[in-house]
């Protein structure tokens, strides 16, 4: 099996050496792999240093060093969690869900002496059940790893840096936009999906947008004209899944459909402080770092009209957004500490209420790094999210009730949740994260299918997540 994997890696190198003047990857011979450490040669060698290793399995019995000589790095991680709702929702109970991620990157500088190139391929194995689908029916789903069970290709791209000081780079291939666009660095701590890919594009973009577990073909340009400003812009296929199934994950079940349908264009401008090269005078009080982003996206596909009994469609869809991450406190009393508190906020809105489920969504919160002294790698967070159902949908509900007086439905409005979480760093390769969420007005006021005439009651969600890097 291992030999097969090595051969696959070699094929991988060979493929990407084509059309490259420098491409002469060494051929694989048994003598090239020579274990040199106890970690490498002993079946349980990885146990030595397991408390400080970056990976549970250390150098993977020599596989990592072997890949490294070709400029390749392999990352395998598992996220597993149990989340349950003791109150609220359409059912009570708990679900396990998990995600195994595997990515292989190749740096062309080492492989082919070509500076600034990176090839990346990643895959997902999604297992377990989805609490949000089973029990919650919330708009802002409880976990960012919830998805249909599948084994799928995720990203497959090549990135090349250009210009002096790496001031520009271009990425081409199958990409998941949640890795680069609309990202709040501090919000990534949280478990709820909407701290990653926001609620508005999750519901308003075709197929939920090219974000986990989906991705789409396209080209992305990043430029840094001055060190404090970065421009990010991309053009992608307008839909990450073909229109063969209402569930986009089922329509593109393995991530290899590569649909080209319409155009999704997105642009983002980022300002950050401090910037590389900025000076700090001796009498200047320590200023706190921050990043601010504004952006917009446009999708050229047709979108169904929200009006009751309407069969018309609208051409195109768009939204605007802003993101901030701002450090607001750094421990002044301990020069040997890196304790900080950060505030983050992100908002996105669209005026197009006639074609969108949501016309506004936002997140905000605080993170506290090293909340307890000498727990350097722990983080505490408290955050919230809000998703507003558009007036177009609310009007649909009202019109439905006018036309169906015998079976009225609640008029949907907005959904709010709060989340409190603590990420405990057990080792560099393992974190444990107890989590609590409370959802107000689930689904924006959806009717409870198990209780006629009632909306879904507010939900408390508790659970724990574990992250392991192999």
């Amino acid at each position, binding site marked *: 099996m291992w030999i097969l994997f090595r051969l696959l890696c070699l094929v991988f190198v060979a493929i990407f050496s084509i059309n490259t003047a420098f491409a002469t990857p060494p051929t694989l011979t048994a003598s090239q792999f020579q274990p040199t450490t106890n970690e490498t040669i002993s079946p349980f060698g990885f146990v030595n240093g397991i408390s*400080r290793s970056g990976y549970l399995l250390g150098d993977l019995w020599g596989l*990592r*060093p072997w890949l490294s000589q070709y400029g390749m790095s392999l990352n395998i991680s598992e996220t597993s969690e149990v989340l349950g709702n003791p109150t609220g929702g359409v059912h009570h109970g708990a679900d396990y869900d998990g995600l195994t991620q595997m990515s292989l990157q190749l740096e062309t500088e080492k492989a082919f002496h070509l500076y600034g190139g990176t090839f990346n391929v990643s895959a997902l194995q999604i297992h377990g059940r989805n609490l949000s689908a089973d029990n919650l029916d919330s708009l802002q789903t409880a976990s960012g790893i919830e998805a249909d069970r599948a084994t799928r290709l995720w990203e497959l791209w090549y990135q090349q840096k250009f210009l002096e*000081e790496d001031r520009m780079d271009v990425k081409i291939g199958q990409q998941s936009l949640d890795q680069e666009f609309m990202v709040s660095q501090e919000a990534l701590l949280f478990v709820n999906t909407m701290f990653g890919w926001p609620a508005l594009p999750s519901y308003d973009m075709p197929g939920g947008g090219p974000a986990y577990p989906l991705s789409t073909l396209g080209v992305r340009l990043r430029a840094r004209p001055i060190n404090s400003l970065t421009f990010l812009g991309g053009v992608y296929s307008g839909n990450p899944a073909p229109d063969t199934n209402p569930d986009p994950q089922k329509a593109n079940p393995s991530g290899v459909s590569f649909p080209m349908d319409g155009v999704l264009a997105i642009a983002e401008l980022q300002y950050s402080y401090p910037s590389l090269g900025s000076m700090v005078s*001796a009498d200047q009080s320590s200023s706190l770092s921050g990043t601010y982003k504004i952006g917009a996206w446009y999708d050229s596909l047709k979108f169904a009209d929200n009006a009751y009994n309407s069969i018309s469609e609208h051409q195109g869809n768009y939204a605007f957004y802003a993101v901030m991450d701002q450090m607001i406190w750094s421990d002044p009393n301990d020069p040997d500490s890196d304790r900080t508190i950060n505030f983050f906020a992100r908002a996105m809105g669209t005026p197009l209420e006639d074609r969108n489920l949501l016309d506004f969504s936002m997140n905000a919160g605080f993170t506290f790094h090293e909340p307890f002294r000498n727990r350097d790698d722990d983080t505490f967070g408290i955050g919230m999210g809000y998703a507003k159902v558009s007036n177009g949908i609310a009007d649909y509900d009202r019109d439905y009730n006018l036309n169906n007086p015998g079976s009225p439905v609640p008029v949907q409005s907005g959904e709010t949740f709060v989340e409190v979480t603590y990420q405990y760093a057990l080792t560099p390769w393992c974190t444990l994260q107890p989590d609590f969420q409370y959802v107000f007005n689930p689904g924006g006021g959806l009717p409870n299918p198990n209780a006629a005439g009632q909306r879904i009651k507010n939900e408390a969600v508790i659970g724990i997540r574990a992250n392991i890097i192999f």
Partner: protein
Amino acid sequence: MHAIKFKNLVLAMLTLAVNVADAREPKGFLETIHHHITLASTVADNGDDNPYALIVAPVSAGKIHKNDVLMDNFNRISNLQGTGTTIMDYNPATKEITTFADLPPNVPGCPGGIGLSTAMVMLKSGWVIVGSTPSTDGTTRTMGPGGLLVLDSNGNLVETWANTNINDPWGNIAAIDNGTNAILFVSMAGLDVPGPGVRDPQTGRPVIVNKATVLRIELSIPEGKPPVITGQTVVANGFGQRADKDAFLVGPTGLALGLNDTLYVSDALGNQIVAIPDASTRTNSAGTGVVVTKDGLLKRPLALTTAPNGHLLAINALKGQVVEIDPASGKQLYAQWIDADQAQQPPGNGDLFGIAMTPDGKAFYYVEDDMNTLMEAMR
């Protein structure tokens, strides 16, 4: 009359021009630096990473070309600190980076094994001397005293120096190299340092042991033969040192020679730069020396180098900055962000380590151990 007025006008203009020129005269070195270029990845063929030491080759010898940049890696690929065994060689002319040396994980005469630290120097005679501060589990719990390793200019290990004075050579080496003899200054930061689990009940942090030293090593370098130690003197001692979960070890790390035979030492735990007078001639220890500057812009100072104007450049460990200090006045001029990566908090926290001036004195090299890259900061 008109001639006098014209003369006055010219004089006034000249005076103004001189004043403007004065105003534009940089007060220090860092303000002349505006560009930061990634030169190469420092990851070795075997996956070693976390670059610490950084030096510029003074001569061409063996595999090394004059002005090449040598870096060593402190971590093995699994990211265990104190287990890196490789030295990388970046050639600025060809922009190629190669592995100069890949040492075995254990070497006879180097107690504890190999974990290459910030201590490295290349002599004009072509010998490369590098420090080992080794561990087997990535923490000081299993740290051995290590030693100094002598490599020839083709990267072959030819000698190992270990004795009671050499205990975890840690900081960047300052050297006076006369060709046939040389003086090295090396900080030793491991004596009696326990594992990171041994805590000070007062602070909750790993216990501080005030036993770090700066050792002066006198060398004789016979023609065509490895250097020989002819004398050793502890010229400073009593610096704080302690285990650190993220940085492995915190102790005196930066060494730089200044005017009047003064050795400057960055005392990381004391958050200060101190001066050791008569460094090359003194016969006793100056203790922890004389404080040059403390706190202010310093945030756990690590490697030191000297800019052409005589000012010290100190790398901050806990913030991605380099700080410029006038050692004569003890004044901190300013700092520059050379790593503003907000993936760490504060930006660049824990990323920086080694620093070395380019041969022309107009720029400096540094390493980023989060990205495993060699950088050049230039005008």
